[in-house]
Each structure stands twice: as C-alpha cells, then as structure tokens.
C-alpha cells in the first residue's frame, strides 16, 4: 500500500507516493535524492541523520516519512543561500572541523540549532548539546573549535551579511 504524501524540504514541496513504513531518512535519500543526510546507526543513537523539523533537530531515522508532513524540513543542502555557505558551514572549513565528513551534516545542523537557542553557549553547553552526534574519527576538538568560532553572536552577524 502506497500513500500520497507531501514533504516540504528546504522550501520546496515534494509530492511522493511511498509506503508508510519508510523513514524520513530513507525517503530523503532515496526518493527526494538528497544524500547529504547520512545513514549511520539507523537506530537513533549516532545523529548522522539529523535534520531540522520546524527548526528543531531530530534523528530522521526515527521518524516515519508520512509523519513529517506539514512541517518545514531542513537538510544540510538547505543551508547555503545563493551558493554562499551558512556561517557555521564556513567555520567548519576555516577550522578544519571535520575528518572523514560523515558526521558533519548532522553536527552542523545541531550546532546551528544550539547557536540559535543561545548565541553564547559555554564549551560545556556545546559538548552536552552535541551528545547525540557521534564522530567516529573522534575529531571532537576541532568540531568544538569550529562551533566556538561561531558563538558570541558571530553566527547571527555573519548570517545578516550573507
């Protein structure tokens, strides 16, 4: 049995026919064709599949696609504006906040949310906020540096001038 569903991803509406047992993660990757959202543990633990739903981070492997309708879904592909990277993305490049890059989309989306909630989080708050994003390369120090570079309102300032 397939259902007709409508997903709003990065501002664009996608009308799809899918079976209800598919997760948002699978549909984003295999139906919508946005492979920036990664499948890691597929069990809600690792955070590589993080997307924003109405601005809030969720693990897309733990949500059925049919259950993600009528919401604004943002994936890593939706962060750049007119080819210009989001300030947090740029900070990850400037500070080398990635190694293999697999966890990076999820980490950046979670970091964006954290910095929107609190423009000046402490190191401790950033670490606790990233508890659900595992980096298998263990590159946490540079990840923390990249996010630290965007705090104290710097992300918001850079966003305003994009």
């Amino acid at each position, binding site marked *: 049995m397939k259902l007709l569903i409508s997903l709003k991803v990065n501002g664009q509406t996608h009308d799809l026919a899918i079976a*209800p047992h598919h997760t948002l993660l699978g549909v984003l990757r295999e139906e919508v064709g946005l492979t920036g959202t990664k499948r890691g543990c597929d069990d*809600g633990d690792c955070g590589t599949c993080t997307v924003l739903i109405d601005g809030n981070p969720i*693990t897309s492997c733990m949500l*059925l696609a*049919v259950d993600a309708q009528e919401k604004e879904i943002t994936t890593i592909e939706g962060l750049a504006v007119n080819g210009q990277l989001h300030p947090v993305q740029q900070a990850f490049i400037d500070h080398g906040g990635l190694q293999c890059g697999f966890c990076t989309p999820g980490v950046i989306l979670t970091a964006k949310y954290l910095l929107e909630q609190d423009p000046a989080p402490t190191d401790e708050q950033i670490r606790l*906020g990233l508890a*659900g994003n595992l980096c298998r390369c263990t590159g946490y120090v540079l990840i923390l540096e990249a996010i630290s570079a965007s705090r104290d309102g710097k992300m918001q300032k850079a966003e305003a001038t994009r």
Partner: protein
Amino acid sequence: MTIYPFEYFEPKELEEASSAFFEHGSEAAILAGGTDLLNMLKANILKPKVVINIKGVPGLSGIEEIDGELQLGTLTSIHDLETSKIIQENFPALSEAASFLGSIQIRFLATVGGNICRAAPSAETAPPLMAYDAQVYMYGPNGERSLPLKEFFSGPGQTVLAEGEILTKFKLPIPALRSGSAYLRHSIRQLMDLAIVNVAVSLTLDEDSETIKEARIVLGAVAPTPMHASAAEKELIGKPATLEIFEKAAQTAAQESKPISDVRSTQDYRRAMVQLFTRRALEKALPRAAQKN
C-alpha cells in the same frame, strides 16, 4: 534493520483510535513519538499489521495547570517537559529527568506517554512522576479510567493497559508549600546512556520548616519496575531534615531495592549507589523545600 510493511491509520478521534486498537489487538501498535516503536520495528521485535498514529488525535498533548493540578497530555514531548517554565518551577525533578533522556534529537520526538508505556525499569520520567503522585488516565473500549502511576507498571516492559486502551494524560497535584524535589541519575556516560540507578525524591516540610511532613523516594533500574522506597519514606516522616536522618533513610532505601546484575552494573554496586544517590537527592531537595515558603 528492515521494517516490515504495515497498514497505517491516522485516527482523528480518541474513540476511533481505541476501537481500531481493540479490533486489531496484538497485531496493532500505537505510534506516538516513535523513538521506541521504530527501534522495535527495525529489530523485528514487533511486526504489527497496523500502525495507529495517534498524533492527529486532539487533546492529547500540552501542559496545563487546572484547579491546582498539572495536566500533562500523553503526547507532550520530552523536550517540552525539560523546558516548560511551569514544570521547572513546580516539578523540577521532572524537567531534570527529561534532560537526561537520549539526545536533543530524541527529546524533540519522544513523548512522556511513550516513555511510561515502554515501561523500562530505568525509564527516565517514571521516578519523578511517581514522586509527584501522578495519576495516569487511560481510555479504552469501556471508557476512561485512572490509576496512581505506581500501579501502572506490572513488570519490565509490562503495563496494566488492557486491549484497546490508550494512555491519554497524567495529572499531578501542584506541590504544597515548603516542598522540594530532585532527580539524580547514575550512569557510566553522562548522556546517551541508561541509568545504573535513577532516583527522584520529594520532601514537604512542616510549618517549622525543619520537620519532614511528607516524603517520596522513588528508585529506577533497581527492581522489575520503578519502585517507591516505602520504608525509607516512612522513616523520614516526623523527623528533622538532617544529614544523619537522610543517611539512615538512604540505607533503608538500599535495603529495600531489588537490583540485578547485568551489563551495566553488579547487584552490589547498584545497591551501594542507591544509598549514595538517595542521600544526595535528599540533600539536593532540602534547600528547594526551604525556599518554597
């Protein structure tokens, strides 16, 4: 990691949800936050023919104060428990417990009703809800009924929900004056882990602000279900709120607990940690009770 296909149903009314759940019996599963259900579907522990998504049923979410009680809808997210002002001020142990559950990503999806219906012995929200004397409401083929939450769990992963019954809400009395509460969890990792021991306590002081009038100590992960340390609670009543009295009650709580040895901890270590964390939780709750005049 493959989910078997199922039929999907989005009821718009509680009665519709309950009759569908009753009709399909053990072949149906209720979907709320989904963070436990999807795990079980992926591991093929559950292979329901029908999944009933209750998120479209009106009236099942939200946090409201009505007539001296806090009403918590079953679909209220763990993130909302963690960040709600009314919960942080009146039920701090509940928002503290919520902050330990999973990751931010999971807390936005997971619901309080789901955490309770999963009935894990280590369930994060169960000890604080029990320490606040939560009443749980269910709706089923025979209409609505309610029970004290402590009577809801019947074993690990087991509840008293009958066929077709859906947990709809919790009601918690707003704590009396001079009440303070706290939640502590002991786990190897600070976050993204399950409790070796978790404990929620609530204290109400007498008008002299020194004598203990009411006490609740609820332990998780040390028995088949979350449990009141009833003997320890009784011991505290009428006594002065001192560290010596807390230490004695914590010893009693450790004796009352029924831990097992497993991958997370040995039985002996768990018992020792019940004592330590019960005492610490009481010490944390006391100044909060003294403040609430």
